[in-house]
């Protein structure tokens, strides 16, 4: 006797009978949109609307408590001729580029270490994650103390140890200020790379490593030919997220240097805030904030295509 496998097929509804609400809801097309609904609404309200409103604002000469006057691309034209805008652009790209490289290499190293089995591994993982978990406002206050011109603990230690005669100006010297912000951002962001890449590493079957070892591959070769290709998609995605977040980094920079000294550490987000909120020039502030968009769009599209190709 042949046995047919069980199927999910339901008996067809009786002819002439109307479909029930339940029947409608259980259709995949309807149910999936129902489940996505709250998320989509949230994105529309808190992401899409402000984004399009920001574009609209950037095309207006709009000050606080005044109606806007449509000026087209005049705000962008003004910015293109502003030397400070180009300095802010340079600052932002330098900040993002260096922190990304540092976080990527550091995070990968962190993930490789955390992937090993050793005593106290779980404790080590917890500690390594702390910079990312601690609220930014809190960690920024701690760094304000560490880098403070008067009370810096780093300077105090170095001076006491006789290494230097007088303290470094971590937030007053233009180069050191950018360097300090890069260090703080790297410190905070590395665990994000670490934990995400660790998740990717743990999907790699140990059989692959064993096979490579049997073939005589050194650990470097195993890393290059086994680890890297498998985690490449994860690497690209986490880099993409991190770059997007770092381009929009605000609170760290605003709290530590407020964009100073003399615009040396202003990035798009902090300068847009000063122009929009302090000067009340909402249109110009929106234009500055949107200046990040072309670079980000190119990056995201490029990475997405690269991923798809993979």
């Amino acid at each position, binding site marked *: 006797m042949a046995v047919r496998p069980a199927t999910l097929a339901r008996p067809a509804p009786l002819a002439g009978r109307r479909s029930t609400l339940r029947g409608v809801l259980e259709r995949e097309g309807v149910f999936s949109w129902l489940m996505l609904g709250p998320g989509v609404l949230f994105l529309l309200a808190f992401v899409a609307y402000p984004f399009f409103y920001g574009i609209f604002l950037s095309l207006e000469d709009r*000050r606080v*408590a005044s109606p806007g006057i449509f000026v087209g691309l005049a705000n962008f034209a*003004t910015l293109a*001729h*502003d*030397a*400070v805008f180009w300095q802010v652009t340079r600052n932002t790209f330098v900040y993002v580029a260096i922190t990304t490289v540092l976080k990527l290499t550091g995070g990968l190293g962190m993930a490789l270490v955390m992937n090993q089995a050793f005593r106290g591994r779980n404790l080590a993982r917890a500690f390594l994650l702390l910079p990312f978990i601690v609220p930014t406002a809190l960690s920024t206050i701690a760094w304000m103390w560490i880098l*403070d*011109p*008067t*009370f810096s603990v780093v300077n105090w230690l170095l001076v006491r140890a006789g290494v230097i005669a*007088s*303290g470094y*100006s*971590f*937030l*007053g*010297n*233009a180069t050191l*200020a950018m360097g300090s912000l890069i260090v703080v951002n790297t410190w905070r962001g590395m665990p994000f790379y670490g934990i995400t890449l660790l998740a990717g590493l743990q999907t790699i079957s140990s059989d692959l490593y064993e096979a490579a070892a049997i073939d005589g591959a050194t650990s470097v070769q195993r890393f290059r030919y086994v680890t890297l290709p498998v985690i490449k998609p994860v690497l690209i995605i986490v880099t993409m997220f991190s770059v997007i977040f770092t381009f929009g980094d605000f609170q760290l920079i605003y709290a530590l*240097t*407020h964009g*100073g*000294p*003399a*615009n040396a550490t202003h990035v798009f987000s902090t300068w847009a805030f*000063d*122009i929009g909120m*302090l*000067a*009340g*020039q909402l249109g110009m502030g929106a234009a500055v904030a949107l200046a990040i968009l072309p670079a980000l769009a190119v990056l995201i599209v490029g990475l997405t295509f690269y991923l798809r190709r993979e």
Partner: protein
Amino acid sequence: MFEDVLGWTDVNNNKAFLGEQISCTNNASSILVVAKRDFPEIAKVTDHGLNPQGPKGRFHIINAVSHAIVNHAPDPAAAKAFLRWLYDDKQMSRWLASGDAYYAPFLHGYDNHPMWNPEPRYLPYKESLKTARLHGWPGPASHALSESVAKYVLVDMFAKACRGDSTKDVIASAAAQLKQIYKAK
């Protein structure tokens, strides 16, 4: 330490003074208020004075704190009534007296107000009103002015000169910025 100043934000001069790094700074009464509370030895040797006078006179910056009612307020009459009540001497006096001279009143009617009595070292703040000017004086208050202040055009000009950039260059770049800000309005 000199270079540190270039990266100072609003609180750093207070900290530097109370940390005995500097002995003179431009500030409101907050340094003395905190010193009296937390650093009594420093408070004993702290006083206030007017800004030095230059060839064109004596000047102080005024940061005006005021209230306004927007045109689109749903109930302007109630807002005005509230502000009248708030600015009535009964309320205003109490607020001024509680402020340790952090805020100086605009009106001459308050020249001999009891708020100036508890601490004679606050009297220079009352005197400074005579020579206090808005940012950009003698130019008019305007959107362009507030943009140039928010962008720290003059502050950065001095900062760049202090860190060693050529005086001619920093003046030129600040002038170019101001021209751009004012022309655009």
